[in-house]
């Protein structure tokens, strides 16, 4: 027997279940007085640099029914393309921007909303520039492992055409599932389809 590599296995994922909001957004679920605010509910303040945008959308199952028990998180760069992360080595990101948002969705409709800024461009490992994008992560009852996807902007056509990741999608008609649609100035709609003909492209990254 050769030596062992001793890598540990990742802990297996389990569904977030129907009560994920108790643990992740307790104020939203009516458990008040524990946390001052639900984590991820506020991403910016009046001093944050960059163009204000809002992103809204729904998460739909294979029958086209919107989920009301999902939790959606986003992670993005600041206006200069820097991440508010200890792992960011290229410079200091905007101290007035967290880059991370979490939405439990609306109680009645299940729709999520994020009040954020338009992210700056971020380099791909080979030095090419990625089109402005926002990382999405979706968990819910019935989702066994959290789903990763990305939002790109419909008014960034030139950047999208050059994007190293979008260009990897062979079935070009599916590319549309990653593009948020501008509804009015600064307001984008991004629907996520877990299954079916409009199934969103999910990433294993």
């Amino acid at each position, binding site marked *: 027997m050769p030596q062992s590599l001793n*890598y*540990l*296995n*990742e*802990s*297996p*994922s*389990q*569904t*977030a279940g*129907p009560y*994920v*909001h*108790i*643990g*992740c957004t307790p104020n939203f*679920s*009516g*458990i008040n007085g*524990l*946390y001052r605010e639900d*984590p991820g509910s506020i991403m910016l303040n009046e001093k944050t640099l960059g163009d204000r945008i809002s992103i809204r959308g729904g998460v739909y*199952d*294979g*029958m086209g029914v919107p989920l009301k*028990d999902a939790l959606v*998180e986003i*992670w993005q760069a600041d206006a200069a393309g820097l*991440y*508010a*992360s*200890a*792992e*960011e*080595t290229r410079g200091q990101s905007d101290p007035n921007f967290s*880059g*991370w948002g979490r939405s439990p969705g609306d109680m009645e409709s299940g729709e999520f909303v994020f009040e954020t800024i338009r992210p700056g461009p971020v380099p791909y*490992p080979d030095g090419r520039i*990625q089109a402005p*994008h926002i*990382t999405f*992560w979706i968990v819910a*009852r*019935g*989702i*066994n*492992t*959290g789903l990763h996807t*990305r939002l790109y902007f419909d008014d960034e056509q030139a950047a999208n055409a050059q994007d190293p*990741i979008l260009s*990897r*999608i062979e079935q070009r008609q599916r590319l549309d599932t990653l593009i948020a649609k501008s509804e009015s100035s600064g307001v984008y709609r991004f629907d996520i389809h*877990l*299954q079916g003909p409009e*199934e969103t*492209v*999910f*990433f*294993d*990254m």
Partner: protein
Amino acid sequence: MTDTSRPRGGYIQRDRGWHPPAYHPGYKTSVTRSPQKALLSLPTTLSEETGPVFSQSIIGPRDNDLLHNHAADGESAIGSRILVYGQVRDQSGRGLPATLVEVWQANAGGRYRHQKETYLAPLDPNFGGCGRCLTDAQGYYEFRSVLPGPYPWPNGVNDWRPSHIHFSLFGEAFAQRLITQMYFEGDPLIWKCPIVNTIPSRQAIEDLIAPLDLNASIPMDTLAYRFDITLRGRRQTYFENRPEGL
């Protein structure tokens, strides 16, 4: 400042055969909520190799004490008092410091404090059911609670969840984001649970079962369970094929 002891490559790809598959008919809700097309596999980029930072300043002194964080003054939640502790580490065994651990669970009777909860077990006015903490410099976390009760749920006509605690974890990078559940050593319901059984192998399921740790227990007070959590690791690449490494 570069910490040369830390791996710097991209994240090791998830072993999808180790995790539960998205579609698992034994867990009925997964049937219409599982993507059916192949995931797009790509190496991680900066967007996945970075992740949010949480400050100790957001954490209240009772956030990791579920016995008291929703209790009236001088009172505490009803149930068997437990301490749950362990290490959050990556696949290289490196403890992950200052990472946010969020937990939620049913009360001792198996009832959640939630509008949609239908189980007839009673609410405990002194139990909220959620908590959080940041790991210490070596990646350790701990919290105090009550042993959650098993509960029935609508799937088959007589399916019961084993006692469990839900865990949400961040690590250092969004690529490591994970939600999972902790089970308790010796619970016969573990092996009958359709959600547990979405996990393909017995070995992987055992990774989610916390052993009783009498040595960490507090005599005449609290039983302890140890639950270590492993998040994805980075590749240890000394020669990375990135332009700055030419």
